[in-house]
């Protein structure tokens, strides 16, 4: 309203409903800076601040005091400038006047209105359930609000037997609570198995026997017809003629959205108030969120979707992110029902086609695991009784991550010692990160000190920042330690930490603004703050984008890339000349030996990549030793194509079916020095005995009769992974073509420092095959062209020994005299 806006300079925002949805939405709005834009008033018909409904059953079973489950105390409203009008019911939305009317008789104007009225228990049509006035009769309860909890607990004290109608999640929670009050509990359920929303019949069966062992009686396929007893409840009668004795009844048969306020005042309403992807109702100034809202045909009764909706609504209404859109939630829950740990996600029953169902059952121990896998991704699943893999699986489900081929490892922790015990059992001094010596206790402490994202814990403890092979373990541990309150760090999606953009956004910005140097990127996209750790990643990306037009700045390079040698732990460098395909000559070996003597190499070592490493060379000697060697750089220091290991193949080997040395040499000549997001080690084997170990290389070729198999994504370092077969081709030229195409695609699409084995897991071999072999995206010709251009632009960096790029490129230390004001020579 015009007048209101003049009053405080702010728009009026009214929220109807002070439950978890309303309060969460307001929290999100405040977090988006909405406190400065809006004067916020919340109307709630419960006489409390808002509370965490998830913990309700803990109140019922006595393990939690009601005061402990309030999310925001009354102070919170005051401190945040939010006006709470508790105990008031909104009865009119006068949309033409943009005002609401309350049962206190007053009108309240709004500019924006959010309906978060939630839902109420669904009451099934059961005879003698209600008093003539429509209220539930004494001894019959719903289980929904804090008040319900207290009433149920109070009444249970004088009861011997209770019946819970509804064997879903809430019903079982109510049953457990009642059990703790010493009442005999019957669970009455209409479908054929318990928790049919989350469990399939087999899991439901196992759960039934598990909870029956605790003393709960489960009655399945029972349609309750009427409540028995004149004054007091004495039992229930079912449609099949059977009965059960009980002194009280708790109804937990699901929810009905409180959507009437929408339909009555002209908003499009079906089961819930219909909203679009911005949570807008049919009136653009009115929004609905939570259990009263219906989005794309669905009404959600769980908290996770509510959090998502609240965030999108806040970002939209405050303008913090005009593109914010809610596209529906993938449902995954992890919960504890009567002490039974359970995780359920997505579809729980397969359609029997185009999918794999991986299943494990151990009914006596109450363990059940089932995964439904479609196109290599998790479409859904159930874990019960033993859920140590739940965190990983829920994430894999949520983000559509491609699953590893070893399906067994999805259900069980196989092999790795740290994973055989649960985090609860794991002693605090177990070392999680073997590179940096970080123990479990340190990570848990870090979370206890307030770090809530995986990245912030990694930054603070250094866990997972070495070789990276423990990253997933660190992630699971942080998630466990946060008890599900783990926060997504937006920086985890940035290409580099110092520029707040993902790789695709960054590439677009670089192209659109024609940014050709690392400093230009910082100036344009990071307020000129040139984060040192971000420089090499940006340099790598710019080189891939611009090729020869890239404006190289040497200070953006890591030391190894400034001097084309690998820095050692004493500050000297290692020199590894390129030995194509591992094939050398006596003359070359003599030159290497002479150079080792002349420059006093402290060690001469044969490398794993079939080359010779001269270790302990001073920086200032690098140009001279390169000159004496007369060989090109082996690039053994940088994120680039490294080497191609070969076996002797058909030239000498009596088993050889392909000329692997000649192929290996051709591979090295073509791809030498090609920079990439992470190093690439190659191999070429002359027969399927695979002596060059080509199947555990980033790219590998294995000769078979009449052709070559090309493998990608293999690894045998910090991580071990067998490569995936990309294609089988006929000739050396075809191998080179296909390898180059994969490299170019990897260069363009991988994250910085992402090895091919992670890239493969992320993208998937089927997708890569479609793009690189079948040309489904029509990209092959371009990828090949880009690779040709990159190959043509190659220049041996060791040539910089004779023509340094900058004056002190190989300048060693600057020796100066004892402090005086005399000038010293530079």
């Amino acid at each position, binding site marked *: 309203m015009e007048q209101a806006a003049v009053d405080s300079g702010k728009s009026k925002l009214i929220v109807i409903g002070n439950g978890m949805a309303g309060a969460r939405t307001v929290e999100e709005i405040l977090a988006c800076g909405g406190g400065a834009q809006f004067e916020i008033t919340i109307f709630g018909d419960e006489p409390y601040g808002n509370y965490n409904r998830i913990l309700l059953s803990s109140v019922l079973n006595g393990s939690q005091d009601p005061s402990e489950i309030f999310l925001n105390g009354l102070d919170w409203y005051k401190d945040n400038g939010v006006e709470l009008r508790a105990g008031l019911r909104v009865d009119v939305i006068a949309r033409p006047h943009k005002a609401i009317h309350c049962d206190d008789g007053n009108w309240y104007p709004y500019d924006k209105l959010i309906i978060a009225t939630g839902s109420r228990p669904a009451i099934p049509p059961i005879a003698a359930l209600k008093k003539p006035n429509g209220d539930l009769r004494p001894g019959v309860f719903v289980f929904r609000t804090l008040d319900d909890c207290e009433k149920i607990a109070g009444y249970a004290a004088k009861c011997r037997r209770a019946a819970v109608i509804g064997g879903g999640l809430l019903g079982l929670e109510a049953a457990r609570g009642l059990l703790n009050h010493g009442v005999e509990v019957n669970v009455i359920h209409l479908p054929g198995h318990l928790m049919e929303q989350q469990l399939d019949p087999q899991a439901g069966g196992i759960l039934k026997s598990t909870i029956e062992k605790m003393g709960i009686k489960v009655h399945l396929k029972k349609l309750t017809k009427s409540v028995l007893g004149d004054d007091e409840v004495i039992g229930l009668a079912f449609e099949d003629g059977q009965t059960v004795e009980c002194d009280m009844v708790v109804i937990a048969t699901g929810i009905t959205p409180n959507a009437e306020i929408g339909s009555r005042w002209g908003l499009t309403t079906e089961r819930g108030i219909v909203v679009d992807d911005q949570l807008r109702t049919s009136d653009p100034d009115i929004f609905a969120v939570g259990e009263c809202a219906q989005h794309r045909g669905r009404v959600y009764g769980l908290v996770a979707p509510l959090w998502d909706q609240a965030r999108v609504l806040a970002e939209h209404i405050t303008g913090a992110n005009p593109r914010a859109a809610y596209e529906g939630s993938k449902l995954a829950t992890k919960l504890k029902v009567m002490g039974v740990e359970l995780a359920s996600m997505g579809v729980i029953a397969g359609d029997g086609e185009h999918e794999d169902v991986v299943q494990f059952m151990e009914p006596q121990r109450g363990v059940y695991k089932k995964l439904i896998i479609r196109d290599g991704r998790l479409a859904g699943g159930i874990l019960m009784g033993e859920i140590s893999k739940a965190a990983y699986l829920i994430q894999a489900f949520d983000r559509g991550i491609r699953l590893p081929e070893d399906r067994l490892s999805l259900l069980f922790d196989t092999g790795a010692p740290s994973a055989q015990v649960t985090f609860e059992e794991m002693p605090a001094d177990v070392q999680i990160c073997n590179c940096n010596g970080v123990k479990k206790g340190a990570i848990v402490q870090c979370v206890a000190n307030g770090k809530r994202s995986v990245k912030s814990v990694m930054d603070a403890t250094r866990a997972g920042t070495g070789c990276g092979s423990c990253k997933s373990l660190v992630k699971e541990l942080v998630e466990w330690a946060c008890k599900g309150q783990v926060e997504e760090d937006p920086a985890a999606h940035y290409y580099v930490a110092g520029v707040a953009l993902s790789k695709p956004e960054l590439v677009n910005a670089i192209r659109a603004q024609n940014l050709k140097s690392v400093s230009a990127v910082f100036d344009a996209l990071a307020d000129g*703050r*040139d984060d040192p750790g971000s420089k090499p990643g940006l340099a790598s990306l710019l080189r891939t984008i611009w090729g020869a037009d890239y404006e190289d700045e040497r*200070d953006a390079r*890591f*030391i190894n890339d400034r001097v084309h040698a690998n820095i050692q732990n004493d500050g000297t460098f290692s020199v590894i000349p390129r030995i194509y395909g591992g094939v050398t000559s006596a003359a070359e070996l003599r030159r290497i030996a002479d150079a080792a003597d002349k420059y006093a190499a402290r060690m001469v070592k044969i490398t794993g990549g079939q080359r010779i490493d001269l270790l302990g060379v001073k920086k200032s000697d690098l140009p001279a030793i390169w000159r004496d060697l007369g060989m090109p750089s082996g690039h053994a220091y940088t994120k680039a194509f490294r080497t191609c290991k070969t076996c002797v193949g058909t030239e000498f080997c009596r088993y050889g079916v392909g000329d692997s040395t000649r192929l290996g040499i051709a591979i090295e000549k073509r791809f030498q020095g090609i920079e990439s997001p992470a190093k690439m080690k190659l191999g070429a084997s002359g027969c399927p005995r695979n002596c060059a170990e080509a199947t555990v290389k980033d790219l590998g070729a294995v000769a078979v009769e009449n052709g070559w198999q090309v493998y990608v994504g293999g690894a045998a370092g910090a991580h071990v992974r067998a490569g995936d077969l990309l294609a089988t081709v006929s000739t050396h030229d075809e191998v080179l073509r296909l390898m180059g195409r994969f490299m170019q695609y990897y260069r363009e699409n991988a994250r910085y420092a992402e090895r091919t084995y992670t890239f493969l897991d992320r993208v998937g071999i089927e997708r890569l095959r479609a793009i690189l072999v079948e040309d489904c995206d029509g990209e092959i010709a371009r990828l090949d062209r880009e690779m040709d251009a990159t190959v043509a632009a190659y220049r041996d960096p060791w040539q910089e020994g004779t023509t340094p790029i900058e004056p002190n490129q190989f300048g*060693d230390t600057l020796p100066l005299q004892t402090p005086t004001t*005399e000038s010293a020579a530079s």
Partner: protein
Amino acid sequence: MGYELMEVHKAGVLEVGPLDCVGMGQGRCIIVDGKQIAVFRMRDGRVFALDNTCPHRAGPLSEGLVGIDYASQLEAVVCPFHNYKFALSDGRGLDTELHVRSYPVEIRDGRIFLCLT
């Protein structure tokens, strides 16, 4: 300011050389009486100096990347060995309890002077 510094620390002031004896945006190690000191020249022309030896595993800080650390928004060097970060202004560790000694630096007439006391 520069002049005062020179006066006060006359005995301990050392001329390192012209600005461009250190590459732009890079560091360089100087040795004074056997002691290694890393001198850094930022892209904007400012110069800093720290002990060259990383207290973690003795990495040469002069070979590290420099710039404005995104997390602390301070000028920083990243050790080339294990990525420990130190503030250039005072040598304090940005992601570690460790710290290195820093030295005041002055630039006069395009030349770098270092105060060693």
